[in-house]
């Protein structure tokens, strides 16, 4: 694993190896919570063959790093890894990976979900889906704003 907590890339990644790297050579970690987001073959009633993820290079990395820093302020974490892909991804492909290591499971779960909730509302990515009826930009979901709003300011 490179030392960076955050990576934005077009290539796929290996979730098992990434989680492993987070605790390599350590024996003080008690819990690893991970999340993988995938391209679903259907969304809002249409079949989805693939999607293209556009992003804002530079701001993307900064936004993700700020979210990770916020998580470190809220919970005692031993390691965090965030990988987000961009470009064209087919149904079934991995989009995003978040892994959090901590001494205890409560912190690991909470921080992992916190990072995903803010990534969904703060990181500058936009999805365009390829459906049977053509291409369409995915609308932001109110549920994602609500999920992020659950986390009161620390």
């Amino acid at each position: 694993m490179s030392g960076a907590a955050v990576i934005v890339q077009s290539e796929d990644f290996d979730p098992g190896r990434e989680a492993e790297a987070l605790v390599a050579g350590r024996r003080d970690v008690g819990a690893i919570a991970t999340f993988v987001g995938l391209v679903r073959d259907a969304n809002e009633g249409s079949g989805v063959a693939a999607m293209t993820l556009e992003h804002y290079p530079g701001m993307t990395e900064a936004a993700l790093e700020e979210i990770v820093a916020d998580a470190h302020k809220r919970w005692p974490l031993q390691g965090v890894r965030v990988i987000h892909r961009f470009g064209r991804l087919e149904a079934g492909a991995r989009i995003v990976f978040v892994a959090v290591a901590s001494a205890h499971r409560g912190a690991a779960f909470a921080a992992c979900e916190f990072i995903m909730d803010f990534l969904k509302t703060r990181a500058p990515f936009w999805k365009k889906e390829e459906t049977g009826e053509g291409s369409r930009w995915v609308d932001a979901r109110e549920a994602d704003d609500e999920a992020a709003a659950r986390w009161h300011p620390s």
Partner: protein
Amino acid sequence: MQVKILYFASLREALGCAGETVELPPGVGDVGGLRKFLQARGEAWQAPLGRGNLRFAVNQRMAGLEAPIGAGDEVAFFPPVTGG
């Protein structure tokens, strides 16, 4: 003063433009003022930049309409994000 402007996703497509560098007239000092200035350039800019749910970033950080902008800043306009 000059600022660099970026447009993303559906807004980029609606404008047919990914970015530009513009010379701001005196009196335009925040994101809201910049938006009005850009919209006033014509029909093609009026509606897309007038969308109610647009988001803004100044120098790669999320910002509101009241955020100040100065020479050399990078200002981005984009729809709500949908990554993850």
